């Protein structure tokens, strides 16, 4: 699998930089796919997510209070954007402090499940972000990716390719 981290100018502002991920040279990011998968059934919730991302990018930053934490492995930064209690959607992201978010995908959140592993779609999207987070962390440790602009941007080798594919 190949993928790259790309910036989303629609939400990025003075308080946070919002990124998403493009897989295998596709045209769309994971976040756009999430929108397309859900816009017909949950249009209002999609608008709500767009509103929230705009405020995070421009006014509040990615404060912990706006996210459901610990959606991945300890310390990997995989979180979910908080939504209204009766909402249907779950959007996963990777959060670095209050200034960087990488938007992933997500899906419909069935009312009758306790853990994300009980739903194949949520599990798939969540585990993909866990993998991406792990690989970004490795590059940060190797200084192949660094935080710039006072922690508000990622710089460096932001394109990835599985060694088995290379």
């Amino acid at each position, binding site marked *: 699998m190949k993928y790259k981290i790309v910036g989303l100018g629609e939400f990025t502002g003075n308080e946070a930089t919002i990124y998403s991920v493009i897989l295998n040279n596709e045209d769309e990011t994971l976040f*756009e796919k999430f*929108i397309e998968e859900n816009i017909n059934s949950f249009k209002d919730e999609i608008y709500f997510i767009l509103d929230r991302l705009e*405020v*995070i990018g421009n006014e*509040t930053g990615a404060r912990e209070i706006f996210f459901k934490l610990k959606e991945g492995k300890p310390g990997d930064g995989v979180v979910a954007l908080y939504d209204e209690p009766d909402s249907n959607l779950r959007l996963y992201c990777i959060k670095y402090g209050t200034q960087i978010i990488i938007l992933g995908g997500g899906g419909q959140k069935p009312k009758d499940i306790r853990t994300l592993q009980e739903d194949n779609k949520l599990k798939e999207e969540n585990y993909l972000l866990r993998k991406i987070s792990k690989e970004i962390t490795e590059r940060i440790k190797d200084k192949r990716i660094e935080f*710039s602009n006072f922690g508000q941007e990622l710089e460096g080798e932001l394109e990835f390719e599985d060694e088995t594919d290379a």
Partner: protein
Amino acid sequence: MRKKAEKHSSKLINELMAGRDKHTTAMTRNRMLLAAKIDDGIKAKGWGKSQFAEKMGKEPSVITKWLSGTHNFTSDRLTEIGLVLGIELLRVDSKPNIIRYQPVIVTQNSENEIQVSPELGMLINEGIFSQRVIADC
């Protein structure tokens, strides 16, 4: 020089952003800004979420919901939170912008000259506008 992330422009997102309902967008924004102000207030006190919950007489899960930026607070609740945290969440302490109205009497004398009492010019200068005009011709 290290490479920055490529910028991705999305027609889909741009179209959706342009089609949002401005009232709903403003409501979402205000809920998030209030939550951020409360979050700042809790931190300024040196409290955690649990301590704040205790002070408010609520379960921590209720505080999590308040802080998620999705909650529609009542003005009474904001007053209560503001008192506990010692911060102003509702700006009602300053006087509202009051427009004063005062009746003026318009008369016409025998030489057909219009007279206004009190003097209209003075009232306008003071930001007071006529609401009721009594014609006495």
